[in-house]
């Protein structure tokens, strides 16, 4: 017998529905937010070394790379929040099961409406060459 462990690749090859991809993105954005938290804690740590050290640390953020990372963070937080609320609603009200697809599309619409304006606001300074 070969073992029953499912590799990451094999799992991705399974043809689930939209919900499976929504869940995969949920996990991915969760990890993204966690990564931000780690960076944020390190940056805040510089406060203990005095104002100059802290200012030097946060000046790294003023770069095109971190501007893009900021948009990615906005994406991750918004997606994780909206999708998380969708899953919570579906868990609490099982009777809504039949509207499963409508829920996916509604949460996608809310996400886009929230994300696009914020992303544009974030990217404008970059386009104006302020970085």
């Amino acid at each position, binding site marked *: *017998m*070969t*073992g*029953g462990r*499912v590799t990451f690749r*094999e*799992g991705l*090859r*399974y*043809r*689930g*529905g939209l*919900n*499976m991809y929504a*869940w*995969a993105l949920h996990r991915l954005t969760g990890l993204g937010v966690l990564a931000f938290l780690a960076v944020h804690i390190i940056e805040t740590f510089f406060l203990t070394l005095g104002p100059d050290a802290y200012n030097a640390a946060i000046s790294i953020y003023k770069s095109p790379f971190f501007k893009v990372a900021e948009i990615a963070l906005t994406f991750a937080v918004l997606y994780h929040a909206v999708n998380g609320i969708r*899953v919570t609603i*579906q*868990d*609490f*009200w*099982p*009777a809504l*099961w039949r509207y*499963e697809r409508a829920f996916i599309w509604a949460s996608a619409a809310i996400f886009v409406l929230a994300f696009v304006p914020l992303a544009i606001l974030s990217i404008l300074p970059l386009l104006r060459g302020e970085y």
Partner: protein
Amino acid sequence: MKVRFDIKRYNPEVDEHPHFEKYDVELEETDRVLDGLNEIRWRIDGTFALRRSCEHGICGSDAMRINGTNRLACKTLIKDVGEDVRVEPLIGFPVVKDLVVDQERFFAHYRSVLPFLINDEPPPARERLQSPKERARFDDTTKCILCGACTTACPSAWADEKFVGPAAIVQAHRFIFDSRDRGSAERLARLSGRNGAWGCRTIFNCTRACPRGIEVTKAIAEVKRSLIMGSSEERSS
């Protein structure tokens, strides 16, 4: 019409790794995938192993991955999958040979939710009566045939062997919401951890894979709700 089967083969006594083999079979579009697999086993390659018993969607023996999704070979028509059919064993279980998987862990999880009527009250002279409404409360989950299509479609079950999986929760649901049963507290206690109902991430792959059309994710959500509310009114509503 000629149907090309691409089958994942693995014989642990001979092969180091699984591999795919192609077979061309002449079939009608109203034939089932299982007819093609039988044809291969009976007339083309007798070494090909698969499991099937009733061949009519009741015994649950022939769940497998067909074109990437878990289905019963005996309930899947050729016209629904096309002329190229990729067949693989269920994922998450050890492969015994070709499409035959070891379901021991699946049944251990099934037994762990006490899938039988628990009632110590003295039995009445005739049967334990139940109203049609009470019976309807758990009707959907009585349809489970333990084929394993849902559990092996579930990413949570892929990631964690200790998670009981959707099928076991469906079986628990069938008794938790049965007005004649008195073992709900014990079952809910067993399902209250992350290896129980909370291992479910509401991904809906199970519902999509169920060949009996059971609303699996909904049943799990009802068990989750019972775990939070904990009241018998919740269960009988």
